[in-house]
Every structure is written in C-alpha cells, then in structure tokens.
C-alpha cells in the first residue's frame, strides 16, 4: 500500500517523460533531502547542544556549530557533485533471456571538478557506482538482468550521490528512450532438424567419423555433444568438433514442423537451432507463422532471425 502511494507521489511530483539526446543536469532536476544518517547526525548535534547549554561549554558551542554548518555545507557539495553533468545513452548489445543487458550511458563532466561516488540504479536494485574525472567523458554500464524476451526498457533510472559525508541524498531521475533487445533463451542442445530428422535426439555423433573435419574454439551456444571432451582432457581448452559433411547444407527452421509444445518452448528451440546452424556455417532460413526470413548465413542474418524470434507475437513498439 505504502509502496503504491510512494509510486503515485513520485509520478505526480517528478516528470515522467522519456528523453532523447543529451540531458544536462540543471538545478531544476536535482532534488536533495537529508539521508537517514543525516537525521541521526541532527539528533547527535541536538544532544551536543543540550550538553553545551547544561554545562556552559562555550567551546562545545563552537564544536556543535562547526559540525552543524559543515553538515549544512555538504548539501551544497552534494548538489555540486551532480550539477551540470551531461548524459546521453549509448547502444545496448542484444542479450539472451537469463543474461544481463548492459545499458551504457555516457557521462560528460565539462567542469574542472572531479565528481565522486555517483550511483546509477533502477527501481529493482541494479546499481552501478562510479567517479568522474574533470573535463572527461566516461561510459557507465548498468547491468539489468533480462528475464523476458522482447524489448527490455531501462525504465526510469535514479542517479544519486551521498558525497561528501553521506548526510544528504541528492538525486535526479533519468529516463532515456533506450531499450535492449532480449532474445529468447536458447533451448537445451537439440539436433538440427534437416540433418538429423531420422537419427532421433542427441545422436549427432552417429553421423560417422569420416565427416569430422577438425576442431574449433567453443562459442556460447554450441551444442554440448559437439564439445571435444578428449581435447579438453588433454588440456587444449574447450573445443568443438566440426563436421565437413555439414558444410554447404541448407535448411529451414520451420515453426510448423515443430512438435506440439508451448509457444515459448518453440521459440527457444528455434533460437537454439539458429545459433547452431550459424555456428556450423550452414545456410538457414526461418519460417514463422507471421512471416519468414530467407535462407542466408552470417552475423547480420543471425541477428535478424533472433530479432524475429525475440519479437514474435509482440506488437512492435
């Protein structure tokens, strides 16, 4: 309940527009309130003042006032630590479900002041802490776990600092129109459809030794049965067997030919196959109920296929 009110208040009090281009943190965007430690310190100062009055400690007054004004001044320091920063969002690499999307923000500090301990975080508690050197531009990553396929919005992010003494919480909200493309999670390794239709599940090895054409380095998404375990045992690192017979094959990864499983499972399986087919250097195409991608090969093709799978059934925003 309280959380909901907090959210409502926030939406009402702070702008909720999505921004493009470069954002400059001016004084209208930076909010400051005392932190919990700040309130605790105020309490300590109050106690000190009572002691000063009671015991007539003149030097105690001096100390109390010094600490109080120092604490007050740190408000200015906290504001200054954020003020006039220029931020723009960078390109976000697509990721698979289960991985972390790395949102990149470029922070430019045009002033001659170093900025310390700036926290960038979202409402789910993903956080990144950084310092900014004077007159310098710094890219800052914020890793947000990708839990669903499709577009992952960075949502509204908070940028805050407790510098220098942690007594004040100075913060601002930034919401850029950046989003990460999240591909479906690749299914557990399955034999490719055309090449292994009769062999059944997981029997890729049965195709015969004559086709074996060599080893190459393992890349993420390679099927487990293809891993050269013997090579690994010889401490040659993680390598994958390649089969020459598969070179030049072309195949269709067809939604319609899949067994009757849940839609998301189908997408995961197709994702797995796109990865495998690309890794094996095959020509492959993708047929989905809402259209097809022609048979092709290459990184761009793979990206196109994966994007279709990621956004399948979603209205393009």
């Amino acid at each position, binding site marked *: 309940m309280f959380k909901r009110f907090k959210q409502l208040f926030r939406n009402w009090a702070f702008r909720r527009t999505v921004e493009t281009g470069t954002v400059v943190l001016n004084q209208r965007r930076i909010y400051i309130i005392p932190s919990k430690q700040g309130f605790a310190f105020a309490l300590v100062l109050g106690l000190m003042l009572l002691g000063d*009055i009671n015991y007539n*400690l003149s*030097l105690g007054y001096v100390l109390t006032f010094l600490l109080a004004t120092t604490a007050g001044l740190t408000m*200015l320091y906290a504001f200054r630590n954020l003020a006039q920063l220029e931020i723009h969002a960078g390109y976000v690499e697509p990721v698979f479900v289960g991985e972390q999307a790395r949102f990149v923000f470029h922070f430019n500090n045009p002033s001659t002041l170093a900025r*310390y301990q700036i926290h960038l975080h979202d409402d789910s508690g993903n956080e990144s802490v950084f310092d900014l050197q004077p007159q310098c531009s710094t890219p800052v990553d914020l890793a947000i776990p990708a839990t669903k396929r499709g577009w992952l919005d960075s949502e509204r992010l908070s940028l805050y600092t*407790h510098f220098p003494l942690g007594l004040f919480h100075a913060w601002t909200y930034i919401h850029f129109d950046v989003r990460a493309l999240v591909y479906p999670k690749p299914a557990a390794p399955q034999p490719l459809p055309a090449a292994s239709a009769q062999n059944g599940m997981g029997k890729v090895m049965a195709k015969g030794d004559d086709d074996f054409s060599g080893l190459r380095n393992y890349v993420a998404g390679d099927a487990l049965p293809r891993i050269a375990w013997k090579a690994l045992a010889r401490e040659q690192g993680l390598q994958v067997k390649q089969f020459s017979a598969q070179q030049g094959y072309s195949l269709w990864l067809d939604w319609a030919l899949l067994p009757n499983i849940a839609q998301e499972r189908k997408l995961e399986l197709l994702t797995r196959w796109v990865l495998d087919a690309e890794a094996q250097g095959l020509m492959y195409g993708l047929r989905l109920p809402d259209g097809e991608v022609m048979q092709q090969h290459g990184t761009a093709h793979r990206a196109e296929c994966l994007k279709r799978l990621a956004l399948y059934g979603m209205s393009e925003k």
Partner: protein
Amino acid sequence: MKLTAPLIYGFIASILLVSAPHTEHLPIWVSTICVALLGWRGYLAYSGTPLPSRWLLLLITIAGVAAIGIGFHSLFGREVGVTLLILLASLKLLELKAVRDATVLIYLSCFIIITNFFYSQSIPTALFMLLSLVVILATWVNLQTGSLALKPRLRIAGLLLLQAIPLSLILFVLFPRIQGPLWGMPQDAYAKSGLSDTMSPGSMSKLSLSDEVAFRATFSGTAPMRAQMYWRGPVLWDFDGTTWKRGQNATLQKPMLSDVGTPVDYTVTLEPHNKLWLFALDMPSNISVAADMAPDFQLLSRTPVNARLRYNARSQLSYRANLSEPPQQMKRALDLPRGYNPKALQLAAEWRAKNVSDEAIANTALRYFNQNNFSYTLEPPLLGTHSVDDFLFTTKQGFCEHYASSFVFLMRAAGVPARVVTGYQGGEYNELGGYYILRQADAHAWTEVWLKDRGWVRVDPTAAISPARIQSGLSAALPDNAALPFMARNPPQWMRELRLNWDALANQWNQWVLGYNPERQFALLTRLGMEEITWQKMVMNMAAGMSLLVGIFTLILLRRLVVRQSDPVQAAWLKVCKKLSKAGLVRAPHEGPEDFTVRVIVARPQLAEPMKDIATRYTNLRYAGADDESALRAFKDAAKSFKL
C-alpha cells in the same frame, strides 16, 4: 562500501586524537588497553587478517567494563562515562563491519571531543579540536568515497572546515543563549583546586605551588598600592587546635562601614571554583551580581560559581568596620580550644599583664615575630599536637598560615578579639591587557583584630617577618632554591613578557569566547546597535547573516561548474552559434563551420552575407594559422555585430 585499510587507519588516528587529551585523567591501564586495541586493529588491517571472533570481543568488553566499574566504584558519573566511551570506541573498531557502524564511530569521536571540554577549554584545546576535526572529516569523506587518496581527502575536509568557520561564528554570536544548567549535574563536574573554607598548617603552602589563575581584575581608575591589595575570601573563626573553620555566624546584623575614604571600582573575572565565595578587596561595599554580604564582610554568591563569573565591585580602602559587634560574635572571636598550647597561653598572659591597650598587645606580638629569628619558608617542619607552641618556641619556620594562626591564637589568649582571613594578596600586572592576574600561588592568610573605636583592623603578621612578601610577592620573600611555581619565581624578562602576552590573549579568549553568556551576548548586541533584543530578532539576524554567507559560498562553490571558454576565437564563434540557436538553428556537435553555414543560408537566405564572412574568418583563424591581433579583433567585431 568496503572498509579498506586506509579507512581503518583514519579511524585509528581519529580515536587516538580525540582520546589523547583524556590520557591525563584516564587510569593508566585504560589508556594502555585502548592503545593496544587500536594497535591490534591497525595490524589486522595491515596484514589483512580477519577480525577476532565476537565471543572474544564480548569477553574483552565485559572484562573492561567490569574493571572500570571496580576501579571507579561506580558505572555512573562523568569520569566513568568518558572512560567507558573511549574504551567502547576502541572496541567498536575491532568489530567494524558495515558503513552504518562506521558512521556511529564518527559520531562517537565527535562526542568524545566534547567531553574533553569538561576539563579544558583553552586556546590550545580549541586548536587541537580543529586538528581532530580535520582528521575525522577526512576519514568521513573516505567512508563515502572509498578510493580517494589521502591528500584530496584532507583537502576536502580542510576546505569544508574553513568554510564552516565563518558560518559557525555567526551562529556563535547570534544563536540565542540560554543560561544553564537545564538539569542537575554530577558532583564531580567541577572539581577545582583553590582556597577552601578551612585552614590548617600546610594548606596555603600547598596552593602556592600552583600556577593556576584564580581570577583577573581590572581597575577602572588607578589601582591601589600592592601592599593594600588584600583580596578578601573566607573568614575563619573557629579553631580546634589544628584547623581553622568558618563556623556559623552568630548574628544576622548587616556589616557596617563608617569613615570611608575614596572608593575603588574594579571588575573581577573569577575562574570557576565550585564554591560560594567571591573575592573583593578589603572591604567590599558593592557588587554587581546576586550575592550576600555575610556579617564578617564576606561576599557569598547564591549559587556555586561553576562557570567563569564576571562582576563589578566597589571597595573602601580606608574604613572603620563594625564599630559595634554583637556580644555573641565577640564571644566567637575570643574562643579557644581547651588544653592546647599552654606555653602560648602563658606568653599571652604576660603580654596582657604588661600592656593596657589591645593595640599595644597586637604590636607586641608583631615585634615578637620580628625579633625572635622567625623565618618565612614554603617548607616548614611538621608540627605536633600543640601546633602553636611548637611553631612559636621550637621550629620558628612557617608560611603565612602559621603566622596568621598563631597570631590569632595569641590575641585571643590575651583577650583581644581576632579572626583569620584568607584570600589572595597582590597580583601580577599584565601591561598588555591592563589587568592583574591572581594565581593560586598568591593565596594568603592574614588576620583581623577588633579594637575599640576602630572596629576590625587588618593585621598581617607575615609582613612583620617578611615585608617583601606583601610589597613584591612571594618570589622576593623566599630564598632562590625554594620549590616555587615557575611564574612566581623571577624568570628572564623576555620569558615573562611572553607569558604575560599569552595570558592577555587567554584573558580575551576567556572574556569573549568562554565567557560568552546571555548577558555578554546582550551587551555585545546592544553595542552593535541592536535595539530591544528578543530571541526572534536574534534568530532573524542569524538567518539573514547565514543566508548572505551561504549565498557567497554558493557562488564560490558553484563557480567551477561553469566552463569558461579561454580561447577567444572559439568564444566568439560560440556566441554566433548561440544567437542562431535562439532562432532554431542549432549547430549539431558533428557539424563544421562550412556545413553549418550552408544550412543557415538555406534556412535564412538574408543571413548569407554576414554568415559567410564570419565562417571564413573563423576557418582562417582556426585552420589557416592567420591568428594575428587585427584579424582576431575583426572577427570578434563581426561576431558581436551579427544579428538575425
């Protein structure tokens, strides 16, 4: 945030600094344990060893608290509180895990600083406080920034403190002061050395070893002669054979002065002594603070003097005091303990038989001291049960209390009413500050005898043996090898001046910083032209002053945010771009002058002529190396006169 080794070192330094002034009054074993604990923590941080187990720490804590409880016989009170705070702060550092704990430790350090002010509020203490604050703030900044190096940390801390000083000055002057105490204070709050209300052999000579300031006095007119400067303190009536006590006055009759001469006016700044009496020159007639005058001319404050007290007083130097004294007081002034000092009683009886007048008896006694090889010394031999007899007939060496005590004894034995008066005599003149310093070493005891038609007359038997004590001070009266405090002896001239200058500074500090109370605040604000001072007005003035200063600081602090363009060519070009951007023609970051010009001309053909001119001049200055003075000026003019 991680608790890194430099952060731990910072905490160790902070705790060491804030506890250092306390070592003076901490039990030695507590200091040792604290230093050992901090050293241990430092070693753990240095070697990267994990912290000790919680059980061990709990054990040390319980043992430490128990030992303190046993050592002090209590777990309450100020001394114990401070000792516990310091021990717990050291222990806390050994179990420091989270930032929150670390913040608590910072607050604790600040609190330990304030406890030190119970003991000392001098200028060095204030300077030491600033040093401790810099270290604490630097550690605090480190807590928030983690990786920052020591030098920038110290810089931030120092800057913060420097900026806070003028602000806190305003608060100090204008914050509405309330006179404490708000609640009762522990009894040990103000333990001070000084005169007591009893006198026994050795009590004065013990005080004369102390350099501590008792009070300072400024005369508004000419100061009286040194030999007349008897600062009256407790008056002692009752003698039990060894000790003189104040006893109870047997009358409520107000003391009376008659035949007075020209009065002297002066201001006394009394150091807190936690007793009731106030000091004034013989004989006081007026005082500016709430005080009562006892029948024996003793000024008594209504509450113990536990803060520095400033008062104006008026005294009469020539007087007749209490020409009529009620019989019950007379009886007190003649009372002697039975069975003591038979030889002295006999001597007094001889004098009584030979002399008619009381005055003559007093003079006989003084002559007796003067002519029988009595000597004045700080280290008199011990006396037995018949202390007066021993002193008068055997040892013949004594300090002022011996002379005063035996003189009053002799007078009473001869039937002359007499009493002992204690206080301070003389004082050191500080030319820089124009005031007299009275130290504990100036403590003195003299006597008063009551003579018919003259009332109470001051008689100082010490002057009979050692006139130099009264006229020039203690150092002149004693041999050079006596164990006198440094200032009471005669140091070289330059050192003496240095000490006096320092005391003048300390006096100003006492008056204006430490003695800044509601009355002082009121007086200062009136002098500054404020009328009808109310706390609302003070708060308003305070707010105004603070906002003004904060405004200035804001300007200074935020100045560095604005990036100044140091390149004049670039500055002029940006000015043109800014003018264009107001018309909606914003130069993209990647757009060069030529491309931008083309775009501007397409959008605003009427700007073609000046725009082309400016772009050409800019590219020439920028890229063709034609950066002579006249070209630059022409470009600047063109940029200035550029209009949409």
